[in-house]
């Protein structure tokens, strides 16, 4: 399905993917009573931040992520990723890692789990990171 005015958008695939992500987060809540926040789970798996989540659970979730993406690659097909340059990937990774710890979450914890719960902190965090993300892409475009 095409979205009028946005020939490159994939609204149906996007929504279906979003529903799967929502189900993933709902499963964590239903099964273990926890938030599916990737940055917090990654920090726990690598013993960077403390959490009552068992380390084995954190690793099981992290290992599941690439397996799930690969399953889509084998079935529906996965878009070929278009990356930024190596130095940008490296610098962005460091900033994202520092920022997620400082801001207590990322797109999954704040943007999906917190926003859907109407958490004041998550609403503010999500609006903030979308705003600085938009500003960053704008400035990079202007400099290019």
């Amino acid at each position: 399905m095409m979205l009028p005015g946005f020939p490159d958008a994939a609204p149906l695939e996007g929504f279906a993917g979003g529903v799967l992500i929502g189900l993933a987060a709902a499963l964590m809540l239903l099964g273990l009573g926890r938030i599916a926040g990737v940055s917090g789970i990654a920090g726990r798996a690598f013993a960077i931040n403390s959490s009552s989540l068992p380390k084995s659970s954190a690793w099981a979730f992290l290992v599941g992520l690439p397996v799930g993406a690969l399953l889509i690659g084998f079935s529906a097909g996965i878009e070929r990723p278009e990356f930024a340059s190596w130095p940008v990937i490296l610098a962005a990774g460091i900033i994202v890692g520092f920022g997620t710890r400082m801001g207590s979450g990322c797109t999954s914890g704040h943007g999906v789990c917190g926003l859907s719960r109407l958490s004041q902190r998550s609403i503010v965090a999500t609006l903030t990171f979308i705003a600085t993300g938009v500003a960053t892409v704008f400035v990079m475009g202007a400099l290019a």
Partner: protein
Amino acid sequence: MSARILVPAASGILFGAGLALGGMTNPARVRGFLDVFGDWDPTLAFVMGGAVLVMAIAWRFIPKMAHPLFASGFSLPERSDLTPHLLIGAGLFGIGWGLAGLCPGPGFAILLVAPAEALVFVAALLSGMVLHRVAFDR
């Protein structure tokens, strides 16, 4: 295998599948969403809409249970205070997100699809998290 492995493993697989299906494993799509003053790609809004819709329903019912299926209680964030730390952290996160079009979920999800780029991003991500811990000692 116990539920404390199977539940997060199934959740991680669903999560990774959702990211890939929704195009979020392609950094160009994420940067396209943030490019509101240029060639805007609204796909990420549909991804977030679908995920938030399902979770909004989940939040209505699941926390009313006496306890989760495989745990003795819920372990959920209860803070509601808006701090400079939260704002600056989220702001920094957005800058990195816009620079590379990657956040932690997709970074891990593409480990088997684009291992070289994913490994560099994940290593940098973890380094940034360690830096925060060193800087703020927590």
